[in-house]
């Protein structure tokens, strides 16, 4: 019986090649996109969930409440971990981790240099490895109790010493003189981890002037805790508030607070970030999942439409089967089998399509790993689930309709259109399908428009042809800064060179409290940038009043921005000149006011800003070049740098590239929308073509009669197209409010955003109507041109 059903199914598919092709094409494209989305979501949700105690692991994060709002950091004051270990009994383990970078040198046995690299390193307490059960190939966590020991991952150990065995007991020289003994080797970190602990130095090796300061927090000092079994994080509110009372005196302008952030939140929460620097906001994952559902829904709608449309053609078979004694259930099973066959065929094609699209996905997300279709059993489960879901979604309703035909009518081929699921349902489905498409079209237009706007938005400073070369800042390198700057300034094509701690627009911003013309701290913080006297020319900053910084190595004067004056209610920039500011313990006069420039991404507003000189904080050399000279000048810059600072490691980037990086997630979102809107449009319109083909076939006789009565081809095409145009218009009406909600929400995250006008909506309508008209006319023209006599003769 099954064999016979399959035979009939396959023959039917073959006989209606056109419909089958439309079904399989639409389904497989939709399934392929779903597969890709699933692969990506699976990878993103697999972060940090391999630890034995995952549910009990938390990170302590810091908050400061200002009248303006809450300021957050993933870091904690350096004395916090030992204090918490002492005071909060509900914590089983507490561990401090300090993120840093260092120049590491490995020597050959004869004492000559084998390699020298600038790497991220982590100072960590041994407890960290009791909280997280990383796999130790050599040694154990206790080796981190000793100062001047280092633990490497397998790969790093191989790079440095050839193998894990050979690495043990060897020494690595940190920052030009501090030898570290290799005491352990860890298994390589997984790429889906927020802990890239490739080089871990014992915390006892770590030195910082702020070791005991509760008032100084950098986001690089993190603290992880393991709760005792059975302790609920909510029950820790009381101990933590006691802790806050004990260690903070409440005199600072921002009210300090500490929260416990669950391990499972680390990869997703953009408020705090993590050691790996890879964040995937959950909303984006949800967005992708919704798009995936839309895709599969659109493809299923095609299927339902085509299947119920074809149902009439199958009625005779159903009638005969019923007369022969087939029960309704058996017929349903038979038709579901057919759908299953199509789904499986589509899945096979979808795998091929997905495999072809994988390189694109990898490069889009710039992830250095390859998604693979067959790497995880859960992917198989998903595929099976997808096929079953699609078969059911797409097959069940048509099966119900077809199997419900009355045998007496069916056998005489007298099933009318109304009995076969009717045009009504099909119209609703098409409207849904179009509405989805239109939402995506509008979304795509707005996202691309916003991105174009952001790219063209004047930032208030010059971003073109500026290279940012990092410079080491220690007692050995600092005296050579002047020489380095002089030599690089002389390179042909270089027009200005400035030493600074950060470019005008940066993701790393120093916030500090300050006072203006009084002894009391203001209620908001200020962004402090350290820069020398060349900064203004290097970045093309404009002055509103006074002059720029003069040549000094320490802070002796300040330049502020217009936003600061606005916040301080100073009307005229010139009025601020000569007033005193106290910031980070330094009192100095304001000598100049710069015009506002964007100091963060365009998502944020411009902060109040302070520019001052301080050689001890410079970390960057901003090299402004003539646009044409970049290619020739950059190698020279590197050569000069290496000559002046031979014991350090050179690295550089470009200002405009850095700025482009701020909008990485918008770039990804934009590309995804473009691709998926295209795919959904494709699926919808092949479905549309299928439907119009069917409608045209159904109405052949009517068209013929009308033709005989004198209708022209144009009139007939219009007749067929009208209902589709009405459907598209309905879909637009449904889609607009949805798209509006989505788009305004998305735009609201940008401080600088396009005005939402009516034209993305109008354009989406125009596009949808044009494409629909083109698709439908293609088929209805053919129907209108057919010979009327043929249609009337054979009933």
């Amino acid at each position, binding site marked *: 019986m099954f064999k016979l059903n399959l035979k009939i199914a396959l023959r039917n598919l073959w006989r209606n090649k056109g419909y089958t092709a439309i079904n399989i094409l639409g389904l497989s494209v939709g399934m392929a996109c779903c597969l890709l989305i699933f692969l990506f979501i699976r990878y993103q949700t697999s972060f940090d969930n391999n630890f034995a105690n995952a549910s009990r692991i938390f990170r302590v994060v810091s908050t400061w409440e200002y009248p303006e709002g809450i300021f957050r950091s993933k870091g904690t004051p350096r004395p916090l971990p030992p204090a918490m270990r002492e005071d909060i009994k509900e914590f089983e383990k507490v561990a401090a981790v300090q993120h840093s970078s260092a120049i590491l040198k490995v020597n050959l046995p004869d004492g000559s240099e084998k390699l020298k690299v600038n790497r991220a390193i982590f100072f960590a307490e041994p407890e960290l490895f009791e909280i997280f059960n990383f796999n130790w190939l050599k040694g154990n966590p206790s080796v981190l109790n000793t100062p001047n020991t280092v633990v490497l991952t397998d790969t790093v150990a191989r790079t440095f010493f050839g193998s894990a065995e050979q690495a043990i007991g060897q020494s690595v020289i940190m920052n030009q003189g501090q030898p570290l003994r290799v005491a352990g080797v860890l298994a390589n970190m997984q790429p889906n981890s927020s802990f890239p602990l490739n080089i871990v130095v014992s915390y006892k090796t770590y030195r910082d002037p702020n070791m005991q300061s509760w008032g100084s927090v950098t986001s690089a000092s993190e603290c992880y805790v393991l709760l005792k079994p059975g302790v609920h994080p909510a029950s820790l509110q009381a101990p933590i508030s006691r802790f806050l009372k004990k260690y903070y005196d409440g005199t600072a302008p921002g009210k300090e607070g500490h929260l416990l952030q669950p391990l499972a939140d680390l990869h997703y929460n953009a408020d705090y970030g993590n050691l790996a620097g890879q964040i995937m906001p959950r909303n984006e994952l949800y967005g992708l999942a919704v798009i995936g559902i839309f895709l599969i829904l659109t493809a299923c709608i095609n299927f339902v439409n085509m299947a119920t449309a074809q149902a009439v053609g199958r009625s005779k078979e159903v009638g005969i089967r019923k007369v022969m004694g087939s029960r309704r259930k058996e017929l349903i099973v038979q038709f579901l089998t057919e759908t299953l066959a199509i789904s499986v065929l589509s899945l096979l094609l979808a795998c091929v399509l997905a495999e072809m699209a994988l390189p694109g996905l990898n490069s889009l997300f710039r992830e250095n790993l390859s998604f693979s279709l067959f790497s995880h059993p859960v992917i198989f489960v998903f595929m099976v689930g997808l096929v079953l879901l699609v078969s059911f979604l797409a097959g069940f309703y048509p099966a119900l309709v077809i199997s419900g035909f009355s045998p007496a009518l069916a056998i005489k081929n007298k099933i009318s259109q109304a009995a076969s699921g009717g045009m009504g349902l099909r119209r609703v489905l098409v409207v849904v399908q179009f509405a989805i498409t239109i939402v995506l079209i509008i979304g795509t237009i707005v996202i691309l428009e916003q991105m174009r706007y952001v790219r063209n938005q004047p930032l208030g400073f010059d971003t073109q042809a500026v290279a940012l070369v990092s410079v080491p800042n220690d007692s050995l390198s600092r005296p050579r800064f002047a020489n380095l700057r002089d030599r690089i300034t002389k390179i042909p094509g270089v027009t200005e060179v400035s030493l600074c701690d950060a470019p005008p627009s940066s993701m790393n911003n120093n916030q500090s409290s300050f006072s203006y013309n009084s002894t009391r701290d203001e209620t908001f913080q200020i962004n402090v940038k350290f820069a020398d006297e060349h900064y203004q020319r290097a970045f093309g900053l404009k002055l509103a009043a006074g002059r720029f910084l003069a040549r000094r190595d320490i802070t002796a004067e300040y330049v502020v921005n217009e936003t600061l004056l606005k916040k301080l209610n100073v009307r005229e920039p010139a009025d601020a000149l000569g007033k005193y500011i106290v910031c980070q313990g330094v009192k100095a006069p304001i000598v100049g006011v710069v015009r506002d420039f964007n100091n963060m991404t365009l998502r944020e507003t411009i902060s109040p800003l302070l520019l001052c000189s301080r050689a001890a904080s410079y970390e960057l050399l901003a090299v402004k070049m003539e646009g044409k000279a970049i290619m020739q000048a950059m190698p020279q810059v590197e050569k000069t740098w290496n000559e002046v600072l031979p014991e350090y490691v050179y690295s550089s980037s470009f200002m405009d590239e850095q700025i482009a990086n701020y909008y990485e997630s918008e770039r990804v979102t934009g590309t995804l929308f473009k691709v998926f809107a295209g795919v959904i449009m494709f699926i919808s319109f092949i479905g549309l073509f299928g439907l119009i083909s069917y409608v045209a076939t159904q109405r052949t*006789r*009517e068209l*013929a*009669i*009308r*033709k*005989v*009565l*004198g*209708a*022209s081809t144009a*009139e007939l095409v219009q007749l067929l197209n009208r209902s589709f145009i009405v459907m598209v218009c309905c879909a637009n009406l449904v889609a607009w409010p949805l798209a509006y909600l989505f788009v305004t929400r998305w735009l609201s995250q940008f401080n600088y955003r396009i005005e939402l006008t009516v034209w993305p909506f109008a354009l989406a309508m125009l596009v949808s109507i044009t494409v629909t008209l083109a698709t439908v006319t293609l088929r209805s023209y053919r129907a209108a041109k057919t*010979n*009327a*006599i043929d249609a*009337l*003769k054979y*009933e």
Partner: protein
Amino acid sequence: MITIENLQKVYKTEEIETTALNGINMHVAEGEFVSIMGPSGCGKSTLLNVMGLLDKPESGSYRFLDTELLTLRDRDRSAFRKKNMGFVFQNFNLIDELTVFENIELPLIYNKVNASERKKLVNEIIERMNIVNRNKHFPQQLSGGQQQRVAVARALVNRPKLVLADEPTGNLDSAHGNEVMELLCELNEQGTTIVMVTHSAHDASFSNRIVNLKDGHVISEKINKSRSAELI
């Protein structure tokens, strides 16, 4: 009114060529009621379709009131058709989704007659056809005879010079069949030229002249004395 000379029409499929019309010559005078008879496949429906400009012969000439129709372009053919011709089919060919009124109105719409004029013309013909109380009904709600009346009404509403009928009684029982034939006679008497294809000698007896076809030729013509007297 109609002069047909040497019409040739061949149907080609992948394997066979069938000659449907093989050099037909024929004349229809204004006001005449002509029946075309012959066995199945003799070409009578094809001839009717050619006369209705629904089909195109390979060669020959077809003049209608001194206009050569076979050389017209598609658009002109359909314009000519909707102005001058009405059709009645064996299976009525009414549109199921439209009411009786709307079905009858259709040719007027395609002839760009304005709405008030359309209403007047349709009501007139509905009255004449004695289907006034049916004008809000859909075709399936009517008997075969009533459906064919509607079809005839639709063919006439435009006041065509020529009505072409393809076995108008083929799907009707004899009582309803006679009703339709009497209707056609009545129209003919009022001056409409009618060409009818039929299998039935009984139906043919209502016409002035009977043309017999076989294998695409006219094999005989017979004047129906009882009816043609009035014409002459």
